[in-house]
């Protein structure tokens, strides 16, 4: 049979960001997919050579709008490790709380995009209506909705009062209750089950072979979660990785839905355990210039992110590199797309939660 090549992207309704897949089709079946990235490469890593290390945090935050908090946090944690800075306890807890709030935000955004991709526009709006409440929390506490700029090397810039924290927890728990009703739609609607169930199945062995990370790996039954290494105060939190075994598109949706509940629970634990009081120290000022190199791992909403920072004792770092979760999940996406129907390609691509800005930097 004659083969056809269908370019998927860079502009496509399901893709918020440019990614190209050249799909080689035989009839409606995808035989092969050739990915091309590089449409939004901005050379942010190169900027370390001319931006001072204290200011680079603001650049790193702008790698991506959805994971901006955790990018900033990862950079600061790396520099703190190099410079042997112990950050104040309350600052570490605040970072953890913000990181989990940003996870909820990211998952709600993705669930909305996913709903839009499989034709549930109303569901998309409900997910984004809930996400708006999270963005309001961010604007109240950090001063920015998307770019927060609260992370500094040595701590955080803003405090949340104890009453504010309690109010946020109440708001989040209320949001969790609202979300349960929406989650019910994802879980029980027959057309969603028909559209996503059994589509794009990634077995546990395959997921290990292509080194999946984050919710993608957890949906295939691998209990991996970088938060379990216990860095950044996650060792003081009771945490079970959310694991589903089906490995299909629906399982990836379910993992992200359950992670929203898990994040709300983590925030509750953090607010219980953090030291209370006003005017506690939030920052340890860094002294001198960094010298040395470090790898930092964090669990972003999309999976494990890896930062490599090399400093040579001057104001400018020698090398900064971020290996983002989407980059690790692209091989899995190609594997899933091969052999599927053309109509399932958008859903499969979307369920890896692609963040192309992160990947290309």
């Amino acid at each position, binding site marked *: 049979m004659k083969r056809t090549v269908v370019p998927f992207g860079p502009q496509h309704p399901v893709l918020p960001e440019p990614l190209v897949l050249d799909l080689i089709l035989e009839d409606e079946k995808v035989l092969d997919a050739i990915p091309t990235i590089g449409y939004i490469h901005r050379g942010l890593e190169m900027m370390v050579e001319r931006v001072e290390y204290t200011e680079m945090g603001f650049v790193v935050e702008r790698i991506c709008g959805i994971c901006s908090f955790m990018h900033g946090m990862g950079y600061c944690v790396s520099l703190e490790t190099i410079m042997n800075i112990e950050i104040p306890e309350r600052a570490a807890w605040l970072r953890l709380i913000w990181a989990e709030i940003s996870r909820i935000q990211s998952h709600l955004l993705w669930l909305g995009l996913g709903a839009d991709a499989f034709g549930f526009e*109303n569901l998309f709006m409900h997910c984004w209506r809930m996400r708006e409440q999270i963005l309001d929390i961010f*604007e109240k506490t950090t*001063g920015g909705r998307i770019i927060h700029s609260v992370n500094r090397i040595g701590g955080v810039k803003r405090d949340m009062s104890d009453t504010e924290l309690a109010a946020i927890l109440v708001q989040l728990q209320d949001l969790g209750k609202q979300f349960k*009703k929406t989650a019910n739609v994802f879980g029980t*609607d027959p057309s969603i089950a028909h559209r996503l169930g059994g589509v794009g199945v990634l077995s546990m062995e395959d997921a290990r072979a292509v080194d999946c990370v984050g919710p993608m790996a957890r949906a295939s039954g691998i209990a991996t979660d970088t938060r379990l290494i216990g860095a950044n105060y996650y060792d003081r939190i009771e945490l079970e990785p959310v694991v589903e075994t089906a490995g299909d598109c629906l399982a990836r949706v379910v993992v992200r839905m359950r992670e929203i509940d898990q994040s709300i629970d983590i925030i509750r634990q953090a607010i219980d355990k953090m030291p209370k009081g006003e005017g506690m120290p939030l920052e340890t000022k860094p002294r001198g210039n960094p010298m040395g190199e470090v790898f930092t791992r964090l669990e972003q909403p999309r999976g494990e992110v890896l930062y490599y920072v090399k400093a040579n004792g001057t104001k400018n770092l020698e090398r900064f590199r971020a290996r983002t979760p989407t980059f690790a999940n692209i091989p899995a996406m190609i594997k899933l797309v091969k052999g599927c129907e053309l109509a399932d390609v958008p859903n499969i691509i979307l369920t890896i939660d692609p963040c192309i800005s992160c990947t290309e930097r």
Partner: protein
Amino acid sequence: MANPLRLPMVPRALRNLVSKPATRRYPYEIRPRFEGARGTIEFDVDTCNYCMLCMRRCPAAAITVSREDRIWAIEHLTCIGCNVCVEVCAKKSLTMSKESKPVHTHAEVGPHGERPGHEEWHKEETQAAEPAVQAAPAVGGASPV
């Protein structure tokens, strides 16, 4: 396969019929920004001593300070609102207002030769307090951005 008669969206849809919309009628109804939100940098020319710290620490190089000419200028379109200049200012001349100023997004030279988003203050040494001169001609000659 789930029961095809289950329609989980129906209760929500019925509630939406009687509930208020989740959105605002935006240009007529604007939600006030929260306390502590980062909007636009505001400058007080009277207290500034031209130490140039804000210029050196600005990650976006949006601030230009000239000690000799007593000029303090900011490009609002370049400013990323990170609040660093406000934190380092020893004289507390800089404040962050919670409102975002509307900025020109078109690259057009105005009737007085101003650049979009460019704001500049000039303090005469003889006069202690000069009112803020806004959108004066740029230092190096006005040029379209």
